[in-house]
């Protein structure tokens, strides 16, 4: 595949640059952008978190860097030889085992644990500008999707509407998926698998011509990329449904603006147009959810303070109001509290009303 060739060439070029330095008699050095809060910038123009200009120089002939340097080059070589050249994909864990061995004549392991290879892969991502998935390294898959969409994946035609109760599990690499037919009008992403199952059982996606998608907890890269592609390629509105608490708000924030850890991949992951569907502070009042309050603890308050000070929330009056109300409530509310009004209250009343009335936050 032409794309894999491009990635291969980029890795090869990475090696050639090092060899050139060596040939000149220079201490070989890799410039790696620093991936830490100190080097993450909120770009107001694109409304995404991007990596700053700060780089770390990692040179081979330096006691503190030598091993990391070797690990990065070795992992690059493994990815090129074992994955890109054979067209195979592997997990992060596989890469660790492929790199793991003892350096001859020492009792030093080339890599000690998986964080060594994970970091090397992240380095290669920022150095080559290709995502982990493009390097044929996948994360564990996590998350399900159903809805009015037909795709082609690895030669198979898959109708997201005909996959029984489990739905299609979203792989970590969605680059090569082709969308065959997209009849959905919008997408709802929810943080909770249990809520997704409620919507699926009630055939919410069928009745409302949409796609429902979830992952348990943090949104995976595969899902973020899948959402982004559907947003970019089919202009589908995306709604996020999370608990009314600061962590739910942060899930929305990561999908919309990006995260610190993956700031280098923002371009491929962030969806600035994504909208917050609920649960909002106003929902709490409107649907009388106060009786289901869960008290905030110190950690919640600290996190509220942090989030309200993020650059992208700082000047957003609506979000400041939401966070202020949460503080005033001194409490948070789960999505499932809606079930108190009936098990299908969420699919029959709450969601249709919210979407119809465009009661969303941005």
């Amino acid at each position, binding site marked *: 595949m032409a794309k894999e060739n491009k990635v291969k060439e980029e890795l090869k070029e990475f090696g050639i640059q090092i060899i050139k330095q060596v040939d000149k*008699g220079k201490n070989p050095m890799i*410039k790696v952008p620093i991936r830490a809060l100190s080097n993450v910038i909120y770009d107001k123009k694109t409304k995404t978190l991007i990596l700053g200009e700060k780089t770390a120089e990692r040179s081979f002939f*330096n006691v503190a860097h030598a091993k990391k340097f070797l690990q990065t080059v070795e992992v690059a070589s493994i990815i090129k030889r074992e994955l890109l050249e054979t067209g195979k994909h592997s997990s992060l864990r596989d890469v660790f085992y492929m790199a793991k061995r003892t350096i001859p004549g020492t009792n030093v392991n080339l890599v000690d644990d998986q964080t060594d290879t994970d970091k090397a892969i992240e380095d290669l991502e920022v150095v080559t500008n290709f995502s982990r998935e493009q390097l044929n390294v996948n994360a564990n898959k996590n998350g399900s999707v159903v809805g009015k969409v037909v795709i082609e994946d690895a030669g198979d035609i898959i109708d997201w509407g005909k996959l029984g109760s489990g739905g299609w599990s979203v792989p970590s690499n969605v680059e090569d998926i082709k969308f065959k037919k997209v009849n959905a009008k919008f997408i709802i992403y929810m943080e909770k698998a249990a809520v997704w199952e409620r919507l699926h059982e009630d055939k919410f996606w069928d009745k409302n011509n949409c796609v429902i998608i979830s992952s348990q907890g943090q949104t995976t890269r595969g899902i973020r990329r899948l959402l982004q592609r559907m947003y970019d390629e089919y202009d589908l509105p995306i709604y996020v449904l999370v608990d009314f608490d600061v962590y739910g708000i942060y899930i929305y924030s990561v999908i919309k603006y990006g995260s610190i850890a993956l700031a280098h991949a923002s371009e491929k992951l962030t969806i600035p147009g994504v909208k917050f569907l609920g649960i909002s502070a106003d929902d709490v009042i409107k649907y009388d959810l106060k009786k289901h309050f869960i008290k905030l603890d110190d950690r919640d308050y600290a996190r509220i303070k942090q989030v309200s000070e993020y650059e992208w929330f700082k000047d957003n009056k609506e979000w400041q109001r939401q966070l202020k109300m949460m503080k005033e409530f001194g409490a948070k509310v789960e999505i499932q509290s809606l079930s108190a009004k009936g098990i299908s209250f969420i699919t029959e009343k709450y969601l249709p009303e919210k979407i119809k009335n465009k009661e969303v936050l941005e």
Partner: protein
Amino acid sequence: MGDKIRAEELAKKQRQVSVSEFFVRNRHLLGFDNPVRALLMTVKELCDNSLDAAEEMRVLPEIIVEVKQLAENRFVVSVEDNGPGIVKAQIPNVFGKLLYGSKFAKLSQSRGKQGLGVSVSVLYSQLTTGKPTKVISRISPKKPAHYYELKINTQRNEPEILIEKDVEWKSEHGTKVEIELEARYQKGRQSVDEYIKQTAIVNPHVSITYITPTKEKMVYKKVVDELPKEPREIKPHPYGTELGTLIQMLTSTTANTLFGFLQNDFSRIGGTTAKEMCHLAGLSGKENPRRLDNVSAEKLFNSMQKVKVIAPPTDCLSSIGEELLIKGLKNEIKADFYAANSRSPAVYRGFPYIVECAVAYGGDLAKDETAKLMRFANRVPLLYQQGACAITESVGDTNWKSYGLQQSGNNLPAGPAIIIVHIASVWVPFTNEAKDAVAHYPEIIKEIKLALQDVGRQLGFYIRKNVRVKEQQERLGLFEKYIPELASSLADLSNGNKNKIEESLLRILKKSIKDLTENGEREQG
């Protein structure tokens, strides 16, 4: 009446206990309390005497020590020297009478002191085996060699001569003594072997041939051809004289006036000082010292302590010296590093003394054990009572951690090291008559510590430098191991030539060894 009879009866039983009898009952006081130690003490006393004698005659001592095992608990110790020999008339007294010696109450730096050692061995020998001690001695090639077999009459403290004759002897001058005794031979820290070895270390001018009970012949050749500076005898200093000694000196002096006695029989007392002392004691100075009563003697004693007197002369001492300490150590101990420090003479209680230290480090020495401490007094190894010795306390009180050795609390340090401490004095303050340990005088401990700190600093400098070199080598080694790995990864990644990359990397490594200490990533804004 009855009382009187009783007293007379008692008087019949009361008799003088001879010195010999006293030591028969109290032999532990002199170090003859167990068979292992008895063997060592006998060898030690004979060697000390032989070395002292040869040095006094200003010849380089050559001694032959042989320990022969006759039965499981029966040994013969023989020591032969090339000293001046003993005149015929004195031989029985030297070996057959306790407390008879040329060095008793004489203030000069020598190994033996009380005139006790050899005769106690003779006594111990006859107590445990019933055998006489055999002595051959010759004072000149022109004179015959005399042979004696003798014992001690313990009641009268007099020699008992069994055989006395002139014999043929190969040596021109010297003495050979053979003592049979009940004993036990063992190796280790407190053995005869260790004593001989340590003696060789601090006496580099001495040649010792030692034949062990297993017939092994060990030769310790001298490493220098020069005798140590001859120690000089000094007169007592008023500050180091006790009342009893003063009274004894008064009765035996040849001076006719107290004034003259003070000036002649003590060091550092001149006319003015003597006058001041007499005045302070309420005496005129014209009194006959031999007739001074005890009350006046005590007054004089007190005034002698009060008047300011300059310290005694210190040129009477003979130190080993830094150079020879290291030479002696090098000859016996294979190590990577040696250092020594010889302090200037100092004075405690009117007695001059010198402290010397040396350290050997690394090489064949055991790495994970407590460092070995060798204690010496007037060039004699001290093998017993290490824990009770001021030297041990001084070593423990020194902070060896800052000199690169390990140490827990105030214990001896740990690491591949040997520490040597030598005290030379006209009067080493031992804690007991067996001369096992040095007494805890604060001024002596302070001097020892100063000497230890000096060698410690030298050692610390060496260890730090050496560790740095070692670390750098390890670092280099690591890169040498990493380079082939990096070269093959790079060659694989970019279709390069592995050997060529490896060679280039090795060249850079050689060039940039110095920069490899740099740590941490550099940030660029």
